[in-house]
């Protein structure tokens, strides 16, 4: 994950900044402070029924951390962790939109879960939603 500090500037493409191919999809919080860019829009997302995910209403799209670019001004993100504090759930401090989560443990550092609700409706119209029973069995129900 490359997290660029400073005011997010959509005219700064990944290609210009990092020599990568331009991002093909980006997810923004409501106020626009946080922008997450990925190379490919998600085709499958996960809806989890655990105590936290069901309240967040998040639809998680999993990415390799190195393929995700998170742009947010300094101090624009807040995070929440609970119980064993395995994951840190990030949100925009201003508008409260849940943006992504990352693992706090070394074994999970290669994954970023992006909240696909922050992509445009044209992205969500195409995705398959899988349902994870995070509340009990930790198995997919479909």
């Amino acid at each position, binding site marked *: 994950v490359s997290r660029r500090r400073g005011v997010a500037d959509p005219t700064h493409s990944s290609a210009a900044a990092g020599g990568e191919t331009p991002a093909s999809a980006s997810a923004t*919080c409501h106020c626009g402070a946080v922008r997450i860019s990925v190379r490919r829009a998600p085709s499958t997302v996960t809806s989890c029924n655990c105590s936290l995910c069901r309240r*967040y*209403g*998040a639809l998680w799209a999993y990415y390799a951390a190195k393929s995700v670019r998170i742009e947010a001004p300094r101090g624009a993100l807040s995070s929440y962790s609970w119980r064993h504090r395995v994951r840190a759930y990030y949100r925009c401090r201003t*508008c*409260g939109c*849940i943006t992504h989560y990352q693992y706090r443990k070394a074994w999970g550092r290669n994954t970023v879960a992006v909240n696909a609700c922050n992509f445009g*409706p044209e992205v969500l119209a195409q995705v398959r939603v899988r349902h994870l029973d995070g509340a009990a069995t930790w198995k997919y129900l479909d």
Partner: protein
Amino acid sequence: VSTYRGSCHCGAVRFEIDTDFPELTTCDCSICRRKNALMVKVHESALRLLSDPDALATYQFHTRTARHFFCRTCGIYPFHRKRVTPDFFGVNVFCLEGFDPSGIPVRATAGAPMP
């Protein structure tokens, strides 16, 4: 009409509502689609905040009529004061204890076309 207790995830925001769940709603406006919430509408007299009001952050935009609340600690959206009917709240039903949405009609409201 029954009383349901609700909370954010960390417990800093606790509330109760009185409703018989005539329907649940979704909304496609710019903020509701990001929250992906399933909501029930209650009059302000049917919602009681049981915790410190300062635990809630507020976000407003556009007409700045609606007030979108979230917990300052865990970020959960528990309810918002509505724009067209500002004396009503939309409540995130997944914050409610012992609530099963199955069997309750869901109405998709069109928030996106609103000026």
